[in-house]
């Protein structure tokens, strides 16, 4: 069997690791997926490919490693330029997509994580309120970005769809653990429909982890954190 010119080092529960895979699928690029069980230890290949941060995902293209999930998605878009576009071609729309992707990574997903580690009911409610505030902003952003089309990126999945959609697994786990809906017909109807479309897209289906399996993994992680008082990656 020929060794692939394109490798993705990832980890199945990681939303960040989904992103390069979705992008490669959109471009119909064959790649070898290497599962790194990072909670058990880091391989030589990972440490060599990402010596600065020692984190997945890493894309290895030929001899070149590329790190940081959104950076990797942009690299994939620019390198396989003949496939469907992932970043918008208009610079202003590109800036908006990048803005919301940064917001998701720096503010919104950390607020999801803080629900899981909140100590006490008040803290938990406050964390949930923050997540819901963010979803309201994203519902509005969806209206502006999609302009009536099925995805943030328009007719097809784009940069912001990938950035946000990769968090849907953990969003669903959070809903399950807290017995509530964060995405709802009442408050975020557009996002509810978008989420279904995203998860059933051909580029996403096989890469989205099963919610039950993710929930089991989540329980293990939370137990470890409560025990060790350490930060979630």
């Amino acid at each position: 069997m020929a060794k692939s010119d394109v490798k993705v080092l990832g980890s199945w529960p990681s939303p960040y690791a989904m992103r390069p895979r979705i992008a490669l699928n959109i471009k119909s690029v064959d790649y070898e997926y290497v599962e790194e069980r990072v909670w058990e230890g880091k391989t030589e290949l990972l440490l060599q490919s990402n010596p600065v941060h020692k984190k997945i995902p890493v894309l290895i293209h030929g001899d070149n490693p590329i790190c940081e999930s959104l950076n990797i998605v942009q690299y994939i878009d620019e390198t396989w330029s003949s496939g469907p576009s992932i970043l918008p071609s208009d610079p202003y729309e590109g800036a908006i997509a990048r803005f919301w992707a940064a917001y998701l990574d720096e503010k919104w997903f950390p607020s999801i994580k803080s629900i899981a580690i909140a100590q006490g009911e008040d803290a938990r409610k406050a964390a949930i309120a923050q997540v819901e505030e963010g979803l309201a902003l994203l519902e509005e952003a969806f209206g502006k970005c999609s302009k009536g089309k099925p995805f943030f990126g328009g007719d097809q999945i784009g940069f912001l769809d990938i950035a946000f959609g990769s968090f849907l697994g953990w969003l669903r786990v959070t809903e399950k653990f807290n017995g509530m809906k964060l995405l709802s017909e009442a408050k975020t109807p557009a996002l509810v429909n978008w989420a279904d479309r995203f998860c059933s897209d051909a580029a996403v289906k096989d890469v989205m982890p099963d919610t039950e399996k993710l929930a089991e993994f989540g329980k293990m992680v939370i137990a470890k954190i409560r025990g060790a008082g350490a930060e979630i990656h």
Partner: protein
Amino acid sequence: MAEGVVLLDFWPSPFGMRVRIALAEKGIKYEYKEEDLRNKSALLLQMNPVHKKIPVLIHNGKPVCESLIQVQYIDEVWHHTSPLLPSHSYQRAIARFWADFVDKKIYELGRKIWTSKGEEQETAKKEFIESLKLLEGELGDKPYFGGENLGYVDVVLVPFYSWFYAYEKCGNFSIEAECPKLIAWAKRCLEKESVSKSLPDQEKVYDFVLQLKKLLGIE
């Protein structure tokens, strides 16, 4: 105000400086508006309702927020002159990686240096120098991170040089002693008008930090 470029900024902000440098490199005329961060303008709150932060770049009435996004936007719109990002996709990925590294490390660690004491400060100093050394490694023998000319990483990193004196005084250490190559690089950048006109004087920044420490009740 529908036409033209407006920058909402705050003079000591390294993030604002990045945008000033990028606009200067491209020769873009713009209106600079100084914001009082204790009394934010209606315009700022309208243009950046999510974060309410500077810098905000307003182009033909439409806001672009977050400094790295703003620099990339400027580079894309005014692509015919002084390119900041390389043209080859792998080189671009490397540039974006290091810009992200600067954001994750330099600002936070620098902040820890001037706001903390004792062991917390020592740890921050150590990590700060380690991060600068990694950047020195990336620079190598090139005159700039961008090669022969100022590039994306240069624009992203050099604003912090205006804060080095403040970090050194607050942390009681010498950055030049540990990272002479990086200091040489920063001085080289300052020979360019786009940089020298965009960075405030280091003493002025230090005075600002002292005032801020008083305000925040930090010794």
